[in-house]
């Protein structure tokens, strides 16, 4: 069975097993752009219950407080694992006592450090015969929460990973075709880059979206491109890992952890027992402010819908604008592939609402065209006052849109 396809190279599970048993060292702080070496180091540390700090391959120590550059890529001794087969490796990982430190990507502000155990990282992993033989498009940064979730789900079932993170559209489609990819888990932004629909890819049977709010227009397009796929949403955060999966366009809090959540002023509060640990967490009555604003659909059943991120609201002349809502409205316009809405500091209103828009090839729209459509759907203060047409929208390390 193939473990990983990356950059034209193929690694089998036997290659992984050999690499794990080879070295007598590992890197507690490892910075590499080679995904296979990264996974080998990760599994090695976990199997030996050694601490590990996950670093982006392109991160500078100046971007993270308190990171000692001199420790990066310095090997430390480890007791050779001598694991006989993959089942032993998986079991060693599952029982790991490692402390794993990851950083939030931060669509706003400085990265935050969060320490996790294998239990919080793999809370959502499902193992069993029905999960065998899956081929996953690996569309996330491997050092962040979502990338770890997909990795553990695939690895613990000894599935195949095909790395497509940060790859162009043509490459992604070629990999789906060549490798017969069955599962994709990615951000809405990733799927938007696959638009417009050109042909159907039938091998894909499961499409998972996470990370940002998505819209009906995007769902419809995904269903055309992957006609055999079931689409679902996950809610996961760097702070808590994966917490709940979607039910239709809502999320449901599982019965077993229902008493671990509170909603105050529309904001979802999570009990600290569900979280990793971090100095940056602030608790109110042992609850963490998630910053996610939600509305109940059925409170008794724990069914809710996401509205926006608290800190993302843009104050425009005293009105609060949810950029996600405006982005969805722009993306619903025919010919628009992607939109990002942000505030630009302004001496009159505090902020002026602005939008960057990527058009689909062959479409021509003017600023006025877009404003007119929006004016018929949104209140005046929600209509961006400056719309720029751009070739692409800059993304954060995890593939989410970066707020300016």
């Amino acid at each position: 069975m193939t473990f990983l396809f990356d950059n034209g190279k193929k690694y089998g599970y036997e290659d992984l097993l050999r690499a794990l048993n080879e070295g007598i060292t590992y890197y507690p702080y490892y910075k590499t752009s080679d995904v296979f070496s990264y996974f080998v180091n990760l599994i090695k540390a976990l199997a030996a219950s050694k601490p590990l700090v996950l670093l982006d391959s392109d991160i500078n120590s100046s971007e993270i407080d308190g990171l000692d550059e001199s420790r990066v890529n310095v090997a430390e001794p480890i007791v050779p694992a001598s694991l006989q087969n993959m089942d032993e490796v998986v079991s060693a990982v599952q029982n790991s006592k490692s402390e794993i430190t990851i950083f939030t990507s931060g669509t706003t502000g400085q990265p935050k450090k969060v320490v996790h155990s294998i239990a919080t990282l793999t809370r959502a992993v499902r193992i069993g015969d029905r999960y065998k033989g899956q081929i996953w498009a690996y569309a996330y940064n491997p050092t962040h929460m979502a990338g770890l979730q997909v990795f553990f789900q695939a690895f613990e079932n000894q599935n195949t990973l095909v790395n497509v993170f940060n790859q162009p559209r043509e490459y992604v489609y070629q990999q789906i075709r060549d490798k017969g990819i069955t599962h994709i888990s990615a951000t809405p932004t990733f799927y938007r880059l696959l638009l417009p629909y050109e042909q159907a890819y039938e091998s894909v049977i499961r499409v998972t979206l996470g990370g940002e709010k998505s819209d009906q227009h995007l769902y419809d397009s995904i269903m055309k491109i992957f006609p055999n796929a079931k689409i679902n949403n996950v809610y996961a955060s760097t702070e808590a890992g994966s917490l709940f999966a979607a039910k239709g366009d809502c999320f449901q809090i599982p019965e077993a952890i229902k008493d671990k959540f509170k909603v105050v002023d529309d904001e979802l509060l999570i009990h600290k027992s569900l979280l990793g640990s971090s100095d940056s967490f602030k608790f109110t009555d042992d609850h963490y402010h998630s910053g996610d604003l939600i509305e109940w659909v059925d409170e008794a059943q724990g069914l809710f819908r996401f509205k926006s991120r608290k800190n993302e609201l843009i104050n425009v002349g005293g009105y609060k604008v949810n950029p996600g809502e405006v982005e969805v409205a722009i993306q619903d316009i025919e010919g628009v592939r992607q939109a990002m809405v942000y505030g630009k500091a302004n001496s009159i209103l505090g902020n002026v609402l602005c939008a960057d828009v990527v058009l689909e090839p062959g479409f021509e729209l003017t600023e006025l065209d877009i404003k007119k459509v929006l004016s018929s759907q949104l209140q005046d203060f929600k209509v961006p006052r400056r719309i720029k047409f751009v070739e692409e929208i800059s993304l954060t390390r995890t593939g989410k849109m970066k707020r300016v």
Partner: protein
Amino acid sequence: MKEKVLSIINEIRAAKEMAPIASISAETKLREDLNLTSFDLAELTVKIEDEFDIDIFEDGLVSTVGEIFAKLEK
């Protein structure tokens, strides 16, 4: 420069479905004569800033077209 300011004003008016104006003079009042709201004025400042790199409202209110020209001519 004056034509550019006029075209930005007409762009803003077009989005409000108001007819374009043919010319502006130094005496033209932004709010009363051109019917610009504070949101429109904010858009005007952003677009003038894009074009000329000057924030016309930076040090206080501007109420006529002439005052905009004066800031841009500095």
